[in-house]
Every structure is written in C-alpha cells, then in structure tokens.
C-alpha cells in the first residue's frame, strides 16, 4: 500500500506540479469569480465562504477524472486486481493520494485565498478546520465516482454529474460552518456533521468503489 501510494504521488509529481496544481486551479477560480460578479468587496465577502468551498470542490473534481482511468487504459488496473492487494485497499490508497495532492494543499493555502475574497477574519480558522475535516470526504466520494465511470471513454462530465450531487451535504455543512465562523457564531454542529460524513464515507465507500471496479473490469 505504501508502494502504491508513493507510486501515485511520484506519477502526480512527474506529470507536472502534483501538489501545486490544485492550488493554482483554486487560485484561478477565486480570481474568476470577482470577474464574474464584479469587484464590490461587500458582496464578495458575503459570498466568500460559499465560493471558497465550491472552488475546493471543483479543484477536487478536475483531478478525479483520471484517478483510475490511466491505470485502466494502460492495463495496470487489471494487473492490480489480480495482485495480493485487496481492491478496497487500492481504492482507499488512491483516495488518500488524491487527498494529499489536492485536499491537503488546499487546506494549507486557504488562509491566503480567504484574504483575496475578504473573508472576515474570524471565519478563517473555521474555513481551515472545515476544509481539513471535509476534504477527505470529497476525495473518497470522488474515488467512488471515478470507480463507477472508469470504463467510459469521456468520463469527465459524466463523473461530475454523478459526484457533484453526492458532494451536496459536505458542501452545505462546510460552507455553513465557515459562514457561522465568519459571523462569530458557534460552529460545533456543522463541524460534527461534517466529521460524521467524512468518517462514514471513509468507512463505507471503499467497499462500494471496489465493487464498482470489479464490475467494470469484468
């Protein structure tokens, strides 16, 4: 499993960027939104929690597409399926690698980005905590979606169609926690719910995803 993890990280880095790329994408989304909605700081700071969370979501999404697809296309997935590693562990490892290259850097860099969108200062710790708790769920749910669509030639859009609705609860609680933080209200409830979703996803989805992979390899 460690071998698989290092291999995936190596591949992500060799393919250019790895850790930095998700950040750059996040930054771009955050720059684009003011271009769309206009430069008024008051509106921006009001929608900041939502935009930051939607941006994190999209950054995850864009790198999901190829999570299993490259392995499927070059035949490694078949070989991995016959290896001593259970497919469940494979899925979990892949999701972890994905989180390390997207969710984690996003969480760490969120401070800088929140300044750009004028997120009120008390919202910043809430944003970071909610991202730290919530992004693993994004990666895990995304891995499930990627497993479902692995055999398809142009899975990108279809994948987002499947995955985005599953992201809704995470998004709602995450953005809500940040908003409450920004308004200096207590954030315990949404954080707990967020944590529950993440734990649930990590506990159950590897099995579902492995089942989907098995079907797609058949």
């Amino acid at each position, binding site marked *: 499993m460690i071998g698989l993890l290092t291999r995936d990280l190596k591949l992500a880095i060799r393919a250019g960027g790895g850790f930095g790329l998700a950040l*750059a994408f996040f*930054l771009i989304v955050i720059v684009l939104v*003011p271009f769309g909605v206009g*430069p008024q700081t008051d509106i921006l700071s009001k929608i900041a929690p939502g935009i930051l969370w939607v941006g994190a979501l999209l950054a995850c999404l864009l790198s999901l597409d190829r999570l299993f697809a490259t392995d499927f296309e070059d035949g490694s997935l078949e070989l991995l399926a016959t290896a001593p590693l259970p497919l469940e562990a494979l899925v979990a490892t892949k999701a972890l690698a994905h989180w390390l290259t997207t969710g984690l850097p996003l969480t760490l860099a969120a401070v800088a980005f929140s300044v*750009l969108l004028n997120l009120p200062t008390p919202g910043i710790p809430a944003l970071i905590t909610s991202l730290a708790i919530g992004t693993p769920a994004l990666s895990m749910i995304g891995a499930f979606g990627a497993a479902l669509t692995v055999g398809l030639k142009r899975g990108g859009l279809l994948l987002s169609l499947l995955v985005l609705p599953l992201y809704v609860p995470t998004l709602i609680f995450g953005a809500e926690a940040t908003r409450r933080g920004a308004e200096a209200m207590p954030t315990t409830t949404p954080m707990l719910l967020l944590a529950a979703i993440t734990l649930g996803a990590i506990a159950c989805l590897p099995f579902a995803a492995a089942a989907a992979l098995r079907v797609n390899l058949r």
Partner: protein
Amino acid sequence: MSLWEYANPRKFMSTTEKAVAPLFALAALFVLTGLVWGFFFTPDDFRQGSTVKIIYLHVPSAMMAINVWAMMLITSLVWLIRRHHVSALAAKAAAPIGMTMTLMALFTGAVWGQPMWGTWWEWDPRLTSFLILFLFYLGYMALWAAVEDPDTAADLTSVLCLVGSVFAILSRYAVNFWSQGLHQGASLSLDKEENVSDVFWIPLVVCIIGFILLFIALVLLRTRTELRRRRLHAIETRERMG
C-alpha cells in the same frame, strides 16, 4: 561580428563567465544606494507618512514584473524563429525571476494598501491585472516542468508565451473596463510638472536601475545554470542509451 554569435552556447558561457560577478556587484551597489537613500534621506510624505517609502521596492518590482515577461516574449520568438538554445533557456531562466517580482509587487502593494485603503486586498484593476500576470507566470512554469523532452518543452512554452502575451494585454484592457480603481496613475512620465518631486524621484530611479541590473545578473546566472543542466541531461541520456 553578429549578435547571434553569442547565441552559441559555448561563446555565451565563456563571455558571461566574467560578466556575472561584476554585474552582481554593480546591482548591489545601485539597489543598496537607492534603498538607503530612499529610506533614510528623504522626507516623509505629508499625507502618507513614512509608509510612502515602500515605493522604493514596490515600483521597481512592479516594472520588472512586466518587463521580464516582455523579455521572455522576445527570447521565445528568437527560439521559434532561429532555434538558438540559449534563447529558449534564457526565457526559462527568466520566468521564476519574473514571478518573484510579481509576487513582490503584490506583497509590497498589499502591505502598502493596509494603511492606505484599509484592506489588504482590493479588486482594483491594476492589482487584478498583476494577479493575472502571476497566473500566466505560473502556467508558463508549470508547462516547462510538465514536459519531459527539453526541445518539446521549449517549443510548447514559446507558443504559450506568444498566445499568452496577446491575452495578457487583452486582459489588462478588459480589467480596466470591469472596474475603475483606487490605484495611483503613472508618476514616472517625462512630463515632470505633474510628478512627484525630485527628492523622491532620484532615489527611485537609482532603485529601478539597480533592479534592472539585478535582473540581468540573475538571468545570466540562471541561464548558465540551465545550459549546464541541459548539458547534464544530454550526457545522462547518452549514458543511459549506452
């Protein structure tokens, strides 16, 4: 003797070998003089107080941020047309410097904006176009990093630089259209009537000259490094090919 002779890597290496160190010394001299002069021997601004002194870092870095991209555009064109390796590698070497200058302009601007406008960040057109410039630098460098074969990478990044320049100018235009900002207009025009007074102006020019020298020294140094790295890559490849 044609200028293109220096595009020969060997000639380039031997010529620049002696130039780098003096250039650094000269750059240090100018930058330090300008900064010390600016920080300690100019009066405080009557409105902005001593915060105005950050201008000696802010304006030179902002100017360099743009000019480095222009230099990359020219060297990319030279590579595409005449296929001189030094040219392509000079563009590659300049990008991180340009990005650092951009970041410095953004950072000093933010530090300045906090007392002046009351926020760290404002979606002002000039600031925003710098953010976009930063993204262009990022993309350019990411493409260099992602492509394995050096010649392929040089070709692709050159095309990107070309197209990117057009779009960067378009963006600058579009951003002005999108928001009227708070930022200062240009004050370094030749028409001195409407300019800041000489007391501020002269050290600023010294700083700018220093930054230009610093950039040249850094670019030469980094291009030399890139040439060596390229050569190393070549040797390694041949070694591996047996």
